[in-house]
C-alpha cells in the first residue's frame, strides 16, 4: 500500500456515508502508533473520497482528538501545518493545537500523505444565522488574519501564496465568461442556453470593469508589501469553520491557508451571505466590514480592493463554471432558474456598493 500511495476512492451506493477503504484505515492504525496516545475509539467523521482525505474523531485517555489525513501534496500540507503551529504556539490563537508524535514531530508521513493529530475542541457551536452571527464571524476572521501576520513557512514547505495572482484570477474569470458563451452557443437547444447567452455578456463586462479597476488601484503596491506583511487567508471560512467555543470563537480546518490580501476571505463571506439572503443589504455589508475592521483594520487602499472584489461577478462565475463539464446535463431548467436568481440578486448589489463605496474616504469607521 505504501507503494501506490493514498489516492481518491470510489464510494458505491452500498457503502455507508463515511466509507474509507480498509488500507487507509490500516495506515491510520499504523500512524497512531507514532503517538503517545491511549486511543479508546476511532470514528470517521468526514471524508473527501474524491481527493483522498478523511478525518477521524479519537477518544483517548487524554480527551478527544482528531486524526486528519491531508489530501494535499505533502509539501503543500507542510505549509498549512506550519501555519497552524505558528498560530497556536506563537500567537496563541484559538486554533486547535497540534499533538506531537513520540519523537516530537507535528505529523506522520504515510501512504504518501501527511497525517496529524490535533485537539478536538469541545464544546463548539455555530453562531446564529443572522447579522449578529455574521458579525461575530467577521470579527473572528479579522482576529485570525491579524494573528497570522509574520508567518514564515518551514524551509521544506511549498510557499502557498495568492498575493500576486489577483490580476491573473480576474483575467481568467473574463476568459471563462467567453467559454460559457461558446458552450451555450454550441449547445443552443438546451433550456438554459438562451438565458446564459442573454446574461453572460453583462457579467463579462462586470469582470472586465473589475479587472481594469484592479489595475488602476493600489493593488500592486499592496501586494508588494509581501506575504509576511499580510499573513494568511483561510480560503474556506464560514459558519462551520468559525464556531463559538467556551472562551470565544475558534477557527478550524486550516489546511487550505495561503498568503493573500486578507479581505478576500471577507469578500467571500459577504458575497456568499448576500447570496443566501437572495439580496444585497447595505446594513449587513457595512456591519460585517465594520466588525472585521475592529479586529484587523482595513486601510483606505485595502477597502478599495474590497470594493473592487465585491463588484466582480463572483456568484455568477462560481455557479456557472461547472457548465464546461457536462453541458448537456447542466444547461437544464434548474439552471435557468439559477441564472434568474443570480441576476435578480445581482441587481440589488449595485445600489449597495454605490452606497458604501465612499465610506472609507470620510475616514471610515476609524
Amino acid at each position, binding site marked *: 500500500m505504501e507503494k*501506490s*500511495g493514498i489516492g*481518491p476512492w470510489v464510494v458505491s451506493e452500498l457503502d455507508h456515508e463515511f466509507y474509507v477503504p480498509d488500507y487507509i484505515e490500516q495506515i491510520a492504525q499504523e500512524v497512531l502508533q507514532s503517538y503517545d496516545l491511549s486511543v479508546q475509539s476511532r470514528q470517521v*467523521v*468526514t*471524508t*473527501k473520497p*474524491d*481527493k483522498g482525505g478523511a*478525518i477521524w474523531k479519537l477518544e483517548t485517555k487524554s480527551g*478527544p*482528538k*482528531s486524526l486528519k489525513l491531508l489530501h*494535499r*501534496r*505533502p*509539501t503543500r500540507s507542510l505549509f498549512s501545518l*506550519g501555519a497552524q503551529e505558528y498560530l497556536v504556539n506563537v500567537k496563541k490563537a484559538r486554533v486547535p493545537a497540534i499533538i506531537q508524535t513520540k519523537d516530537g514531530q507535528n505529523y506522520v*508521513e504515510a501512504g*504518501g500523505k501527511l497525517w496529524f493529530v490535533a485537539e*478536538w*475542541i*469541545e464544546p463548539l457551536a455555530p453562531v446564529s444565522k443572522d447579522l449578529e452571527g455574521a458579525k461575530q464571524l467577521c470579527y473572528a476572521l479579522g482576529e485570525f488574519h491579524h494573528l497570522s501576520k509574520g508567518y*514564515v513557512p*518551514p*524551509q*521544506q514547505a*511549498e*510557499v*502557498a501564496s495568492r498575493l*500576486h495572482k489577483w490580476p491573473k484570477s480576474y483575467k*481568467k*474569470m473574463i*476568459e471563462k465568461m467567453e*467559454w460559457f458563451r*461558446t*458552450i451555450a452557443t*454550441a449547445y443552443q437547444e438546451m433550456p438554459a442556453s438562451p438565458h446564459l447567452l442573454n446574461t453572460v455578456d453583462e457579467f463579462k463586462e462586470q469582470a472586465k470593469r473589475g479587472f481594469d479597476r484592479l489595475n488602476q488601484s493600489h493593488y500592486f503596491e499592496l501586494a508588494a508589501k509581501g*506575504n*509576511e506583511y499580510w499573513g494568511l487567508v483561510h*480560503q*474556506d*471560512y*464560514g*459558519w*462551520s*469553520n468559525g464556531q463559538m467555543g467556551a472562551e470565544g470563537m475558534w477557527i*478550524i*480546518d486550516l489546511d*487550505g491557508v*495561503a498568503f493573500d490580501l486578507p479581505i478576500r476571505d471577507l469578500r467571500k*463571506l459577504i458575497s456568499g451571505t448576500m*447570496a*443566501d439572503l437572495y439580496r444585497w443589504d447595505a446594513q449587513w455589508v457595512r456591519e460585517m466590514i465594520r466588525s472585521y475592521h475592529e479586529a484587523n483594520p482595513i486601510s483606505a487602499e485595502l477597502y478599495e480592493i474590497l470594493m473592487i472584489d465585491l463588484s466582480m461577478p463572483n456568484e455568477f462565475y*462560481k*455557479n456557472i*463554471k*461547472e457548465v*464546461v*463539464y457536462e453541458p448537456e446535463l447542466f444547461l437544464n431548467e434548474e439552471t435557468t432558474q439559477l441564472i434568474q436568481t443570480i441576476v435578480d440578486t445581482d441587481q440589488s448589489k449595485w445600489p449597495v456598493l454605490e452606497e458604501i463605496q465612499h465610506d472609507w474616504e470620510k475616514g471610515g469607521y476609524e
Partner: protein
Amino acid sequence: MKVLMICTEKLPVPPVLGGAIQTYIEGILPFLKKEHDITVLGVSDPSLPDEETLDGIHYVRVPGKVFEIYRESVVRYIEAHPFDLIHIFNRPRLVLPVRQAAPLAKITLSMHNDMFHPEKMDPQEAENVIQEVSNIVTVSDYVGNVISDLYPQAAAKVRTIYSGVDTNRFLPGHHPKMQKIRQEIRRANGLENKTVILFAGRLSRNKGVDQLVRALPELAKKFKDLALVIIGSRWFSQNDVNDYIAYVRALAKRLPVPVVTTGFVAPDEIQNWFAAADLFVCTSQWQEPLARVHYEAMAAGLPIVTTARGGNSEVIVPRENGLVVENPEDPNEFVAQIAQIISDRSLMKKMGEKGRELAVSRYEWNRVASELLDVWTHAQQAEHEQTHQEYAVEPLQQHTAVELEEADLNQEESKTEQKNKRKEKGRKRKGTLQADRPAKQEQNSTGEHVSASEPKRKKTLEEKQPNSPAAANHKSLVLSSSSYELPVFPRRKGKGSNDKPFRAFIIGK
C-alpha cells in the same frame, strides 16, 4: 572533460514520460559522449534504476518532483562528485546552490522557458546567476532576448541553439517506411479520404487548442472531408480533467467533423501520428519559447500553421514551410490561414517538402550537439571570473512560490474539485444559510475536519492546487522540517583559494 548535465526535477531522462527538455538531452547525448565523460543527473523514476551506465553515459537519478527536494539532492551529489563543467537545464535557481557545492567548476545553462522573469526569480539572484555562468544557451532568440532585455549584462553570454529532431524517426507519410503506418492509422480511425489536421501538445489554455476547435465549424463549411486529430494525454482522464479540458471536450463533441483524440501516445510512437496527418497546427496563446512540435512537423513533411507568439515563428519561413497567425485569440484567423493552405494543394505539398528539407538541413540533433560542444569549449577556455562579491541574496531562502515552466498546468481547477461541487449542486443552488451546516457533524463539537462543510461558499477563485502528475510519488520523499543553515553566502574567494569557504550550509538533516 568530466561533464555533469543536470536535468529538471520533473521528468526523468531518458524521456520515458516524454518532455521537451528530456527529449533534447536524449537527442544530443550520442554526440556529446564522444567528446566528454558525461554524467546525467536527473529525477528518479520507479521504472528506472537510481544509477546506471548505459552506452558510455553515466546516469544518476535522485529524489525530486518538487524543486526544493531536488535542489537538496543535487547539491548533495555534487558535493561528493567533482566535475569540470556543469550544465544546468532550465533551472537557473539551481545555479547558486550548485556554485556553492562546486566552487571551481564551469557552469553553463540552457534556457527552454522564461524563467528569469522577476516574479519567478529574485532580480538579485538572477544577476548573481548570470555572473556565475559562463554561457546561457536558449532554444530561441525569443527566450534569449527576454533575458537580455531584463538583464543587459547577460547579452554577451546568451546564444540561441535551436533544438532538433530525429529525421530518421519523423518521416513524411509518403516515405516508404511510413506509408503502411499512415494507411493503418487512417483506416483504423476513419480518416481515409480526409484532410487531417493535427494538433499535438498539452491541453491547456496556453497551448490553446480550443481556438482550433472553434475554427473548425467555419472550415467545415468551406471544405468537405476535414478531420481533426488531437494528441494530448489527458483527454480521457477521469480524475484529472480540469475545467479547460472539459471545455475543449464539450466543444469537440459538437463539431461537424470527425475528431480523433488519441489520449496518451508513447513518445516513441508519436511520429506515426505525424505521418498520418496532412497539416500541422500549433495554437499557442502564450509566449511559447519555441515548441518542439514544429521540428517534428517539418521532419514529417507537414505544412505548419503556427502563432506569432514567443519563438514559434522563428522557424517558419512564411509561405515556404508554413503560415503564421498574428492574432491567435481569434479563431477566424486560424480559419483564414488554414483555408489558405488547404485550398491550394500544390502549395500544401510544396510547404511540406520545404519543411522536410529544413529539418534535414538545419534541425538535426548533431547540429544541436556540435553547437553545444562549441559553447562548452568556450566556457572551458574562459578565465574563471573572480567575482570577489559578497552575495546578499538568500538563494536558498524561498519566500516566493516556486514557479515552474509549465505553470499553466497549475492554473486550471482540478476535476475533483469540480466534481465535488457538482455533487453538492442541489444544495449549493438552493443555498440558504442553513445549508451551510456540516452535513453530519455533531452540532456542538467539531474538531479538525476536512471541509465537507461550507458547500456554498466554496472556492471561487481561490487556490488551485498544482495538480502535479508527480503527486503520487511523494511517499518516497524525505520531508524533514530541518532547514538549510546559513542562508547567507560567504565571501567568494578568487580562483585557487583554498580555505574552503563554500561548505557554508548543510543540506537536510
